[in-house]
């Protein structure tokens, strides 16, 4: 299965809260899991990525948690700000395939 399932479809959080976006996959050959942020009228921008040999990775206010046995991974945004309001996509790639499989996206709104 080449699908990546993402939830929730939309999320509203107050400023300073910690939005969490979840993704699940079936294909155990996936070995690279990036998260992208997309603003209206722009292309996706890489936020953070993880490989399955680690369970957590932090970059600034963004954290990926990875559960290899459950085939799930999630994005946490610490101290969320209105400027974080955007659509977030998880993705997965098989090494060497040079092809990203994207989730359906989560529209995140951070209220002031």
């Amino acid at each position: 299965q080449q699908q990546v399932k993402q939830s929730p479809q939309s999320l509203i959080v107050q400023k300073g809260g910690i939005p969490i976006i979840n993704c699940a996959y079936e294909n155990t050959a996936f070995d690279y899991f990036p998260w992208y942020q997309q603003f209206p009228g722009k292309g996706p921008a890489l936020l953070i990525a993880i490989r399955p040999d680690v369970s957590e990775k932090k970059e600034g206010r963004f954290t990926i948690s990875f559960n290899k046995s459950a085939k799930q991974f999630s994005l946490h945004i610490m101290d969320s700000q209105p400027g974080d309001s955007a659509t977030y996509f998880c993705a997965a790639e098989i090494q060497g395939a040079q092809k990203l499989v994207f989730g359906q996206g989560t529209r995140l709104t951070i209220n002031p």
Partner: protein
Amino acid sequence: DAGVTQSPTHLIKTRGQQVTLRCSPISGHKSVSWYQQVLGQGPQFIFQYYEKEERGRGNFPDRFSARQFPNYSSELNVNALLLGDSALYLCASRRTGTDVGYTFGSGTRLTVV
């Protein structure tokens, strides 16, 4: 350093027409990929090119074709346009042999009427 540049930014075409979209990768990036993003959905992989050769193709009809030039820029062609081809077409480049992710351009918004 310039990012991935795509042209044109917007395009309106009539059903049955043909369209060519252009992409210039980041300097030094030899791998170029094309994705289609329909409104409200995640990008879908169309093609990947490396060193002027097609290295991957997604589940798209033969109306879609692409090529990569010696300077690593790329073109995506779509023939016999259908209303369902209306989407944001994204180009992404990547420096091969590294763990660095793809960099996407801002895309070409194609509207078929």
